[in-house]
């Protein structure tokens, strides 16, 4: 039987394809035009935290080390006001199979795929998640296909993306390499339909449940090392799953630390632009994903996104490309560890934050990722130069995305800047209002929207008057 493979026809079949490829009916959680029962959807997975930890231990996931970054903390104190400069800890998630925290997300999906009798798994991803799915699929005896945006119209691929594709193939996965564009989702649907494989989406409840063990683990480790809870946990933020899962795990451990998002500011560059594709030096953990996913989480490859970052986010720090490259180099030279860009984004945010916090306070950077050829700040900068981007030392604030990267001359120039949280919440409300005019929201919709931005009904009423 040949089916219509045009863009419009395939997109029209999306709900049917999604349901078949996940064995999950999202309709049962619907409570209104906007509202759905988020907590019931999460608990219906049927996995307790102990189950997650046990499943992950079977496939080399979890129980990663926690290091205190003594030298970096000392360096930050030198540039901070007296009494300022919080202790910075780093959770070394690169120690998971496949080299990043994404193994936690993939582990539960692969386990569920086997349980439900699927022969293989498919994931659409630009990065570490592909390697994680491939690694978990290999261990569970599943076939694996990764659908990846790799090259621009000149056939040129970012070195980091090329490396991530290589790693997927190293674990035996088929990698479908695509040119720039949002039609990646279209081709994902077609491939799911063709193969009948499980959709190991980043945004299913399984994907988020898998990260809860990370939040839980980090709280227990800090309690063990320092005898108290962390004060702030910095999370590199893109699609929102890392932040959501980590925060939920922290809450499960009874920890009320501030949850701080951190993204590389890539404003001015269009994520679906063929030209801009190779003029950004970060492939994830940037505002191109972080802001749109925070302000409307349901723009994903599943009907309702289990990653709802604004429910848990207390603060949001933006850093620029030059600042992260500087901190990446400094981490190697001061702390003797080389790690990849995703975790180093939040190390950069942590440096900025530590300067504002007291010496006896604790900040945890909750992930690292592997590094190597292609996925390395030197390769990224060398590549940027070849693409005509100016690379120089100076004040990082002078960098212009797509034109120049300015690497700080001194640690004191690593400052980061605040994303306006209220502005983000208002953007969320505007996006919700596009779905349904606020005067038509039911009581359930109103409560859902307020909870989805971590606010109450009183705030909602006053905010709706402002937008």
């Amino acid at each position, binding site marked *: 039987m040949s089916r219509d493979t045009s863009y419009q026809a395939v997109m029209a079949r999306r709900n049917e394809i999604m349901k078949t490829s996940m064995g999950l009916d999202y309709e049962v959680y619907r409570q209104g035009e906007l509202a759905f029962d988020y907590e019931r959807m999460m608990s219906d997975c049927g996995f307790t935290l102990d189950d997650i930890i046990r499943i992950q231990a079977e496939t080399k996931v979890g129980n990663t080390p926690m290091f205190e970054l003594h030298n970096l903390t000392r360096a930050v104190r030198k540039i901070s006001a007296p009494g300022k400069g919080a202790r910075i800890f780093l959770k070394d998630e690169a120690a998971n199979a496949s080299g990043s925290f994404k193994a936690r997300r993939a582990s539960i999906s692969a386990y569920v795929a086997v349980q439900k009798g699927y022969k293989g798994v498919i994931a659409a991803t630009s990065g570490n998640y592909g390697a994680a799915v491939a690694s978990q699929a290999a261990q569970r005896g599943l*076939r694996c296909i990764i659908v990846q945006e790799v*090259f621009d*119209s000149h056939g040129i691929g970012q070195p980091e993306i090329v490396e991530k594709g290589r790693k997927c193939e190293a674990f035996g996965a088929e990698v479908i*390499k*695509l040119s720039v*564009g949002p039609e990646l989702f*279209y081709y994902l649907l077609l491939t799911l339909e063709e193969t009948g494989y499980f959709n190991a989406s980043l945004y299913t409840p399984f994907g988020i449940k898998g990260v809860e063990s990370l939040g839980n683990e980090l709280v227990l480790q800090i309690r063990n090392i320092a005898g108290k809870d962390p004060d702030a946990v910095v999370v590199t933020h893109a699609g929102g799953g890392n932040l959501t899962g980590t925060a939920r795990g922290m809450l499960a451990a009874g920890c009320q630390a501030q949850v701080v998002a951190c993204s590389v500011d890539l404003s001015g560059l269009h994520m679906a632009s*063929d030209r801009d594709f190779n003029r950004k030096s970060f492939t994830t953990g940037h505002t191109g994903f972080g802001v749109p996913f925070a302000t409307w989480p349901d723009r994903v490859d599943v009907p309702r996104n289990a990653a709802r970052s604004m429910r848990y986010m207390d603060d949001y720090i933006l850093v620029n490309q030059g600042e992260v490259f500087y901190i990446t180099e400094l981490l190697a030279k001061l702390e003797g560890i080389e790690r990849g860009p995703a975790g180093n984004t939040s190390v950069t945010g942590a440096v900025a934050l530590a300067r504002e916090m007291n010496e006896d306070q604790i900040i945890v950077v909750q992930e690292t990722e592997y590094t190597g050829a292609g996925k390395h700040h030197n*390769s990224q900068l060398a590549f940027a130069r070849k693409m005509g981007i100016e690379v120089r*030392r100076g004040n990082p604030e002078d960098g212009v995305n797509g034109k120049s990267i300015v690497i700080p001359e001194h640690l004191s120039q690593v400052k980061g800047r605040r994303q306006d949280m209220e502005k983000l919440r208002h953007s969320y409300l505007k996006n919700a209002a596009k779905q349904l005019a606020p005067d038509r929201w039911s009581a359930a919709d109103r409560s859902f929207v307020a909870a989805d931005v971590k606010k109450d009904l009183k705030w909602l009423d006053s905010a709706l008057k402002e937008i």
Partner: protein
Amino acid sequence: MLSEAVIAIVIASSASCRGHGYLCLADLWLEVAEMSKVPAGTWVEIEKILLTPEQRAPQVPEDTRATPYIMKVAGFLAADSDPGSEVEITTLSGRKVSGTLKVVRPHYEHSFGETVEELLHIGLGGEL
């Protein structure tokens, strides 16, 4: 004698090499010098236009819309074939996919890049 099609494909492959870090040009020259056909079972990469510019998603920005949506995938060649011809491959997941034969024995050679001297001075003591 190399056919025009073969020469064209070598040039096209050379362009795509930059993207993938593949060193395919030399391989392909050797390949075509030694034999006119690529033998069945060879690890190859094919390319396929999934959507023409007119068929692309409505939300695509203008510069992207000017280009076709292209897929590349690697697999084992089903039958002896000429470079540049329409072929079928079996991918690592066992799928059969057809497209234009572009690269013979694709491989990776991405690296740490040329030295960026601006990084070398960082962390040599000034920060502590």
